[in-house]
């Protein structure tokens, strides 16, 4: 019986010729990831296990990105706990402040995620690495602990929804708009327990950064993972960033999908998610009519803090000023992105237009720090969740959007699109 791309990767890592949806398997892991919030809980658990060290010091990545650089004393203690564990176990891929970036922007850039891998991370957006043709999924701290100890994890083999992306998207339509459109269509549990497998000729028009954004938000539709076929663009990306050899899997022609959904990318518009669920989508044309006056704009996160994102935002902000009273916060995803943004003059553009540029951190995306919202404040944000209280006060509102819409909104002082400023 035919298998999906995800099922083929899982079968290979479980030492099985074939797997079917619903089957429980144990798979070998190529990488186990944790951050400064989830790792301390995992470290506490692993210390309770009767084991001597970790399964492979080169296959664990620890990134203190959520509250790092340390936002307060308690966070500092958590980061210290991770640092000391990394030192004791000689973890190769521990990224201290200075090398650190937002984990899901950082790991592909460091070449730690390649096609064919099975990756778990104690962070829900671990599904990002499906963009390079890996099976990667978010887990909790105990799974991370067991993964670090044994190099294995149990999975229920997922069924899949096949998304056939067709044609070329219009100028301002990015990966973010595509994934928000999809979540709006299927809902925040539309892909619950399933793989989201993206195919179709439309993928050839998507940059790697677009694909990272799309795979990143698979979890926002409840998906177990999101995954892209490995094309030449993807292979070139992996070759540029990694010494490891990718293993390319393709879905069988007779693979079984629970559903197939075709999307004509040429018909999509810039899309915004209204509070308080990512599925509450409207096109920017509809949203403009609502006259949503805002207080803050955030451009960054594991969803949209990459070079493409900063470039498009800067192209709109160059030579302009943010509206009076609007706080624009730009957060490059990694130190390399930060440096490239300086070299390209993007940072100068952001500062000159009246924005601030932060060191890489998850910061405001999860309501940590660096841009918390007060009562009744509104933010247009390129982040991934607009749940109640996600960025601050429970009455504050988050409108999820692309970097282009976020930049345009910063100039206008209200929710608007790049064609309307």
């Amino acid at each position: 019986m035919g298998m999906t791309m995800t099922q083929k990767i899982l079968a290979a890592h479980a030492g099985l010729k074939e797997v079917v949806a619903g089957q429980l398997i144990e798979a070998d892991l190529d990488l186990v990831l944790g951050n400064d919030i989830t790792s301390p809980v995992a470290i506490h658990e692993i210390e309770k296990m009767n084991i001597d060290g970790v399964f492979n010091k080169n296959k664990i990545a620890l990134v203190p990105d959520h509250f790092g650089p340390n936002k307060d004393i308690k966070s500092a203690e958590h980061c210290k706990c991770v640092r000391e564990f990394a030192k004791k176990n000689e973890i190769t891929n521990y990224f201290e402040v200075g090398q650190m970036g937002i984990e899901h922007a950082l790991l592909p850039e460091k070449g730690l995620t390649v096609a064919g891998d099975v990756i778990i991370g104690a962070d829900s957006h671990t599904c990002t690495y499906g963009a390079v043709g890996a099976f990667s999924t978010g887990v909790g701290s105990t799974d991370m602990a067991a993964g670090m100890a044994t190099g294995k994890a149990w999975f229920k083999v997922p069924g899949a929804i096949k998304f056939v992306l067709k044609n070329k998207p219009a100028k301002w339509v990015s990966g973010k708009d595509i994934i928000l459109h999809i979540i709006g269509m299927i809902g925040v549990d539309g892909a619950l327990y399933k793989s989201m497998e993206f195919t179709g000729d439309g993928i050839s028009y998507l940059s790697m950064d677009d694909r990272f954004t799309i795979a990143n938000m698979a979890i926002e539709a409840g998906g177990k993972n999101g995954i892209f076929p490995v094309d030449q663009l993807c292979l070139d990306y992996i070759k540029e960033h990694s010494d490891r050899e990718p293993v390319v899997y393709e879905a069988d022609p007779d693979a079984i999908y629970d559903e197939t959904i075709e999307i004509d990318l040429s018909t999509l518009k810039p899309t915004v998610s209204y509070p308080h669920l990512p599925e509450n989508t409207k096109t920017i044309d509809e949203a403009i009519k609502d006259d949503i006056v805002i207080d803050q704009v955030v451009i960054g996160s594991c969803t949209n803090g990459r070079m493409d994102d900063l470039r498009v935002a800067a192209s709109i902000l160059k030579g302009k000023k943010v509206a009076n009273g609007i706080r624009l916060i730009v957060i490059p995803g990694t130190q390399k992105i930060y440096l490239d943004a300086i070299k390209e003059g993007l940072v100068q553009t952001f500062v000159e237009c009246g924005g601030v540029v932060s060191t890489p951190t998850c910061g405001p995306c999860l309501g940590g720090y660096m841009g918390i919202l007060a009562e009744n404040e509104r933010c247009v944000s390129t982040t991934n969740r607009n749940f109640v209280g996600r960025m601050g006060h429970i009455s504050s509102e988050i409108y999820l959007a692309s970097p282009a819409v976020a930049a345009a909104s910063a100039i206008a002082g209200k929710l608007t699109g790049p064609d309307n400023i």
Partner: protein
Amino acid sequence: MKNAKGTVIKYGDNVDTDVIIPARYLNSSDPKELALHCMEDIDKDFVNRVKPGDIIVANKNFGCGSSREHAPIAIKACGVSCVIAETFARIFYRNAINIGLPIIECPEAAKAIDENDEVEVDFDSGIITDITKNKQFKGQPFPEFMQKIIDCEGLVNYINSGKN
């Protein structure tokens, strides 16, 4: 597995882990401290009224969002004996099993059971009894190995126990 029995506290769809335990409290991983803020952003009164043994019942996609294990840890530390939902978000589902918080999926029960009902859950059979309404529902029992993990109060104890 031991049965759960208690009074129901009920919620709707898409209860996310940000409202179960807001990130502003994630600079701690102490279960007791997390329990003080459980459900704070959706139900400020929850921590005052929850009693040991209480059962949370919710509709679809309970525990969506962040992978924070702090969410089931906080619920368990409040003394909640079981969460019944139409569906669970998958990371929350794993996390609950891994830390030994009993959960069970049953759309019929999730729809029919009301706030303050007295409910009993038999995990071996998957039978959910609403004592107040005198009604029974059949939930999906866990595969055997998941039951063993919960019996051991979590994955780590399970691995240590050598039962795997």
